[in-house]
């Protein structure tokens, strides 16, 4: 197999692995955050506004880790620099 095939295989595989493993940690983190927020809401319904707002900000912060993985896999699939390089090297193109 030539180099561009290998680059394609590795990029697509790595993109899937990146997003697959990358969302596990934030997923656990968000689950824990929501669980504690729900138990706090059950204990203190009066503080619902503050808890909900802080929860959303915290969720967004945790979520950004998964978003970085998403960005990396998007780059690997749609804007892969190595793939562009290999295509440019191919003779006859």
């Amino acid at each position, binding site marked *: 197999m030539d180099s561009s095939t290998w680059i394609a295989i590795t990029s697509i595989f790595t993109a899937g692995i990146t997003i697959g493993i990358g969302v596990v940690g934030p997923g656990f983190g968000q689950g824990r955050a929501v669980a504690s927020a729900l138990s706090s809401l059950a204990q203190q319904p009066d503080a619902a*506004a*503050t808890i909900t*707002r802080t929860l*959303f*900000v*915290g*969720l*967004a*912060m945790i*979520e*950004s880790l998964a*978003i*970085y993985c*998403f*960005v990396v896999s998007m780059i690997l699939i749609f804007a892969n620099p190595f793939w562009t390089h290999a295509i440019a090297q191919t003779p006859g193109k």
Partner: protein
Amino acid sequence: MNLTSDQVILWRHGWLNLNETIVTTWVLMLGLAGTAKVMTRRLATEGPVSRWQAALEIIVTTITSQLEGVGLDHARKYLPFLGTLFLFVAVSCLCTVIPGYYPPTSSLSTTTALAGCVFLSVPLFGTLDQGLWGYLKTFTQPTIIMLPFNIVGEFSRTLALAMRLFGNMMSGTMIVAILLTITPLLFPVVMTALGLLTGMVQAYIFFILAAVYIAAATRPRTRDTPHG
């Protein structure tokens, strides 16, 4: 299948390409501005107020109270910028009930532009509030060791802001488009309704994160502020 509405070219003249995203964005902006103009035409401070004014007051006071809850001291000062961000993202999501409409926020260019506005407004408001030196000093909080991390965080959170909104809105329209080819009758409607919910949540998150970033830049930091 188009990934975003960027690829739908409606009008072309030489190097100038007018794609669907630009058109939808301008229609939404004109619609929002026109509605606001019409609603504020007959404002009253005494006697019975019109329904439009009551609705507008609810929107404005809710956004203001949210801003104050985040910790912005003079919420009315930041209301025009942050409130517009929220209303634009929210309306661009709510309009997905219109058939054939692609939300402009499902295009990466739009969300990058919005996140860029937040990225530029943070130093602007920070400088206006505490002076240039005072704002720059917030980068060395709590210690000077944190300086590179604070600078990287400034960029990475802008990237995350843009990608979060883009990913959520794009996946919403994408799921509906895929489902239309598999189960065309009822299930896409359910997913569209779910998309309305996530879109509103994303609009709220975008707006509240921008408020948090501005709040972190405009007041002296007493504790380490979160970076995303």
